[in-house]
């Protein structure tokens, strides 16, 4: 799929077999809060870095769950660790530690 050369946008196909279960389990062990996200998007809306470059805690968590590890890193590598997302998260997720842990585990 997507190899015909006609596609206008990159494929958004999700292949759950690509989910790295070992790494995800390790992440959960370091920061169990990753399981609490309800994808509300508050973090993304308030993100400091997001004003300049696509940065999103929410998208990163989704990307990990969809096996798109590289995308997850890209969603977070501009993060300034300012902590605004922690303050607004309705699920009280420790986002800063989650971000560092994702970057560390999936790097």
């Amino acid at each position, binding site marked *: 799929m997507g190899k015909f050369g006609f596609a206008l946008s990159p494929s958004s196909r999700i292949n759950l077999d690509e989910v790295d279960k070992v790494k995800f389990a390790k992440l959960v062990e370091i920061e169990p809060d990753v399981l609490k996200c309800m994808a509300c998007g508050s973090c993304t809306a308030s993100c400091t*870095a997001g*004003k*300049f*470059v*696509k940065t999103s805690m929410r998208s990163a968590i989704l990307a990990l769950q969809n096996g*798109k590890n590289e995308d997850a890193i890209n969603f977070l590598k*501009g993060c300034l660790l*300012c902590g605004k997302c922690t303050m607004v998260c309705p699920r009280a997720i420790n986002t800063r530690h989650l971000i*560092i842990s994702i970057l560390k585990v999936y790097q």
Partner: protein
Amino acid sequence: MRERIAGGYDDFVIPFMVGMAFIFIYLFIALIRLFTHIPPKDRIKFFKSLVNPKILYKDCRDILLDCLLHVKIFKRNLLLGYMHASIAFGWFMLIVVGHIEMWLYVPQRNGLLYYPVFFRYFVKQEGDLTIKGAFFFFLMDFFLLMVLSGVGLAMYKRFRSTALGMRRTTKPCFADRVALACLWSIFPLRLLAESFTAGIAGGSFLTKPMYWLFNNFLSNDAHILPTWWAYSTALGLFFLALPFSRYMHIPTEAFLILLRNAGLKVTKPRKGFAEAEIYSCSSCGICIDACPMNIQKKNLPFSSVYFIRFLRRHNTRKINQISDKCLMCGKCVALCPVGIESCGIKRAQRATLYNDIKHDYTYLHQAHHTPDSPAHPLPGTQAATGTSAATGTLSASVQADAKLSGRGTASEKVLYFAGCMTHLTPSVIKNLTGIFESSGTEYVFADKDGGVCCGRPLILAGREDAAKEVIARNTELIRNSGCKKVVLSCPICLKVLKEEYNLKGIELVHHTQFINTLLEQGKIKVSPTAGSMVYHNPCELGRGCGIYKEPLNVLQQLGELKKAAKEGKESICCGGSLGSLTLNYEDRGKITQGSLAALTINDPQKIITACPLCLKTFADKADRPVMDIAQIVNENICQK
């Protein structure tokens, strides 16, 4: 006074000499190792400090006040201070007076290490007691009594620490217990030994009566040698256990003062300066009660004292656990009588874990160099719409704003830097800009449409390289604005701007200071109609930047200022600190509640703070209004 034992030697000095030799060799090797771990530049700095009379004077003063008299502990609690000072100073004086006696009476033995320690055994009193002799006898007994009283207090503290102002004490490790047992027995044994010998060598108000007392039912002479043996053995054992116990702080602390006064800083978490700090910790446990995390008993093992203990044991897993959890509120550092910068060590430790994490801040530079080009879209994502506009205006708008709008020129205006957190508390911005307008202050809003973070959160997480990029970018932004004064609402930003930015010639003030100046200059007037309130000292503003007076000054003009349970440098973190990486929401909530309880013991109507992060954290949990100092001032400005 004359020598009694020919040759000036007896076998019982062997245990003492073995311990002494061991400790000298150990310290010598440790010193050399430490020096090799200090960066060459710092080494030169250190040696230079030793020939600088001003620093030398400070060295001597600090050693006398901190290591011997323990003035800092005295200030906290008289009894606790006396306990530490009596042992340290009393012991020191016993050594000094012992040496003086030897020089005066048996100068031929000068240089024998053990001689002054066991002086009373080796000499005998001849003829009538001279005034000079009586004086030294008195001094020796006096200082011995002083040490004994300190040891007595220390024993009492083991069972009832609250009497000495400590709720919780440090759990001693095995080596600590051995050394402690020796230390506790050294001085009673010395008293016994000198008492039994007092009939021969003389004594004063303590040893003489003891001699007569024992004389009634013991044959004193038969006890002389065994007690001296016991005394020497206790000393020897103490020296053998010393490097592995908390008492290593005795030799290290003085050395740390020299290093600190020379201006050295922590570079690595375990080596060089940090190592000197680690071994200077006396495990006094003051940092346990200080730590706001310890509102929950399960957090006790995360206190700085145990962090340092695990550093000594190279237990990396525990070291990381503790350093990641700490709020970096700085309270343990502010209260530590030795002045150990454990937060600095924790930062260095975090750097070993997180500094090499990948980051990509190219957007910062694009924002500056080509203001009109769109930001680089991430592969696999859509380019965020509106990005180019936002990026383009980041620096350009501030410059344009500063130079063109309003009446004054840029250098007359103040630059207002709100910071990320302040954008989450719009009331602060609204009220502060209100104050700017009431006072006729011309200002430029640096990050009105969102700026970049100040870099402190990155530094706190140990990501120093990433922080450097952010700092460079913000420095440019501030310098380019042309303003000569920056007003900040967030103490977190203020601290990093003061410490890490190169902004010479630009004045940095927090808005509490700014408001205080406006009031002093009469540019705004307030009415005392705010009711009763309590002020919370934010960690980064108080302990971080040393700003305590200004907020109180402002608030006193607004209404009745009530006292909190812990104030000033002992103020308790709100729990929201960005310093902690792993504390979860529930644990933070407990800290917030503890902090609120301490603030509201005198039942104020309002809680006032000066940090957006504290404001937001408290507001979620408080049972009464929490507001920023800017808000309460703005609400009580009298219209002219």
